[in-house]
């Protein structure tokens, strides 16, 4: 018989069976194990680095890097005498350039293929499926290698390029197109054009509201777009803001500083990212469109909407709600995949870091690189979250 007169808590080790105590203990144990592990690993690493006489501080950032980068908005943005910090900035600019361009293009491509994937036309549908399956089921790195070495580098050499209208030139050295050089009136023209756009948009929205309220035909889009165009073109004719700079061919290829020269490396990473991400976005678009109930299509058709109008006004806005979260994932993947540009010689953050790692300690470099990618991902995720809350159905 147990003695029931004793109060239950009088046993000295009762707290061992207390859930609250156990939880705290378990957590502290886990924490201390992880902290100890961390101390051991960091200690080992710094000891190893010290033994190899590799500095681990960030003081190298202000020193000259000793390598040059040819890739960027201007010709040779980073010279041998520029600092390491400058090289990182140029790399980041290049990453952003690749990410922004391929983000826009891959969205357009994905939208197009996703709609084609649902076409009633057997051939269009099959071609879309073939494209999606091919690019989804092979690694991006392989696609990049293929595009770069087997497509772009097999073009004729820069001295004898393919001539395109423009005149533009396409060769294994990249694409050279005419470039616009801003004159003294360029800023003025930009201001006027921006003003024209503001006026056009305001008119457009005002007229559309009139149409929605009264049912009158107001030609909102036509007038709005017309105003923008007329203002822009007239101001252009009057101000002559830009002069055109044509690319020129020298004996050994394009002459630097003439026209806009887009390097083959940049073309390769853009093509690779766009084709790869486009295939995934197409599947997202397809499932988004399919998530809209068929009744919506039927109702719209019975109201006399055309196919394009149904897609644009009825289906896509509803599909967007389903599409945005997976689309966010794809954009994040795209930003991270841009680090593969290093494999085709495109000087983005990781590529620059890899070059640096030959002369400086990797620890600070990789901390900076990971920090850059992490903040890039977090910013993208934050922007897409805002979009997501904007597009969700508002319930009151």
């Amino acid at each position, binding site marked *: 018989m147990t003695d029931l007169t004793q109060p239950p808590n009088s046993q000295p080790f009762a707290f061992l069976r207390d859930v609250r105590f156990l939880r705290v203990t378990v957590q502290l144990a886990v924490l201390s194990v992880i902290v100890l592990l961390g101390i051991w690993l960091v200690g080992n690493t710094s000891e*190893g680095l010290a033994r190899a006489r590799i500095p681990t501080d960030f003081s190298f950032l202000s020193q000259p890097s000793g390598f040059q980068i040819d890739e960027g908005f201007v010709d040779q943005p980073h010279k041998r005498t520029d600092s390491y910090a400058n090289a990182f900035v140029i790399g980041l600019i290049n990453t952003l350039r690749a990410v922004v361009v391929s983000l826009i293009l891959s969205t357009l491509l994905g939208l197009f293929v996703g709609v084609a994937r649902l076409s009633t036309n057997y051939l269009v549908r099959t071609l879309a499926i073939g494209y999606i399956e091919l690019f989804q089921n092979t690694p991006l790195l392989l696609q990049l290698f293929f595009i770069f070495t087997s497509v772009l580098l097999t073009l004729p050499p820069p001295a004898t390029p393919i001539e395109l209208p423009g005149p533009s030139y396409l060769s294994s050295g990249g694409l050279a197109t005419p470039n616009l050089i801003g004159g003294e009136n360029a800023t003025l023209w930009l201001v006027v054009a921006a003003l024209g756009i503001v006026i056009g948009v305001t008119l457009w929205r005002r007229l559309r509201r009139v149409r929605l309220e009264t049912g009158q035909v107001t030609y909102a889009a036509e007038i709005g777009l017309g105003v923008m165009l007329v203002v822009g073109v007239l101001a252009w004719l009057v101000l002559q803001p830009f002069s055109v700079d044509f690319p020129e061919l020298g004996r050994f290829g394009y002459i630097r500083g003439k026209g806009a020269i887009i390097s083959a490396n940049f073309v390769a990473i853009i093509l690779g990212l766009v084709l790869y991400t486009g295939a995934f976005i197409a599947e997202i678009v397809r499932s988004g469109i399919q998530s809209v109930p068929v009744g919506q299509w039927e109702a719209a058709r019975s109201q006399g909407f055309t196919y394009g109008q149904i897609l644009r006004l009825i289906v896509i806005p509803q599909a967007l709600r389903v599409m945005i979260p997976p689309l966010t994932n794809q954009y994040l993947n795209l930003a991270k995949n841009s680090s593969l540009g290093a494999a085709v010689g495109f000087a983005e953050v990781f590529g620059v870091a890899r070059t640096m790692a030959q002369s400086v300690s990797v620890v600070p470099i990789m901390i900076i690189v990971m920090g850059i990618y992490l903040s890039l991902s977090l910013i993208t995720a934050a922007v897409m979250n805002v979009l997501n809350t904007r597009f969700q159905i508002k319930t009151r």
Partner: protein
Amino acid sequence: MTSIPASAVTRPPVERGALAWLKKNLFRTPFDSAMTIIVLGIGVLLLAQFFQWAITQAQWTVITTNFRILLQGTYPADQGGRLGLSVALITLIAGISWGIWGKLFRATVFAFVGGVLIFIIVPAAAEGLSDAPQGTLSAYLSGQLAPLFSLLREPVMLLVGCLLIGYAVGRLGKRLNRKRAGRYTLIGWLVLIPIVFFLVRGFTDADGILPFVQTNRWGGLLLTFMLAFVAIVACFPLGILLALGRMSGGSHTLEFKAPPRWWLNPLQWLHALSIWWRNLGNYPIIKLLCIVYIEFLRGVPLVTVFFTANLIVPLALGDNNIDAVLRAMVALTLFEAAYIAEIVRGGLQALPPGQLEAAKALGLSPVQATLFITLPQALRIAIPTLVGQFITMFKDTSLVAIISLTDLLGISRSVLAQNEFIGRHREIYVFVAIVYFVFSYGMSYAARQLERSGSGAVRKLG
């Protein structure tokens, strides 16, 4: 008003036949017809270009010469049988699983039979053409394509044969006792994975039964597979633990009702802090650690992880002898665990809360409720996404080429560096792409079948 007699109301005739199909699928409207013609033009042009290149210009000797290197790297040639046995075992059990949980469609059978026939017919036909005069198409076919096909014949026949035998066994087992067959197959997978690993790696010295093969001699498709295999197996438990850690804590969230200008009152700060702390759940430290781990690894590219692991792991462990393959395996496992964790968490969140409540009401402890009630169902929900992630993982292994490991893609780069094959990019990349495509597509096809058969969904009552 006259009523229409019932006999006059008939269904519009359903048009059948090839012409009706054409009209319905290709020439519905003028726009449709234009699209058809344009797409047909582009498609025919592309296909014609590709086949013209593949059949008359490509030099496939780059593949046939390096076939063994592409498949197994510098793995000792006399030990190749071990790899064959491993592949056979895995395909067999894959076939058994397919027989139990999947379905055999007629199209699949046709594809298999057609594929096998091609590999028998082409070399045989090439035999007949072998004395064709130089420079003709027939000479090219027998000289270039036939050796490639006859090299591929054995692996492909082995794969298909084992798959079909496994399928038959699986069907038989399913008919005998479905439940038991399923359980044994799962156990089979679990047992097979370490067996295959040790079969490939070996553990005895040079003259024993299974001589030890160092991991730096693994290469080509073998390395790709072993990386993906080890990473998939190892990241799965880690991912589940991370997901549970992130989900840990109570389901009740407390709301911080902020009075106006609460930030002026330090007591309110404490209140907000305590609410945040309690909202983190009952294991706030563990939860925080899991969140930091998951979000950090999901925010950085895999190449940077590989790169860092490659240079820092030997330093961090104070041991320079850890070979590069092991480093890559560790990096891939740690990286993918973060993604698996998020997928499993998605499955856990999709589970109706009633499941956990019912388990609690029945008196199951939290551990029991997780192990027997919520986790199995969550994993079942997550199967399609998990398979998608496994495919990604399989493709991601190609990134080890950047830290100069010789996986399938990496070794194809070293093959291209051989003097006699410089400039043969297209042939080798097309071959590598086909290999990746076959396995990725196979996995996604299997996942789709599993989804369609309903095994992936939560079982519903009634």
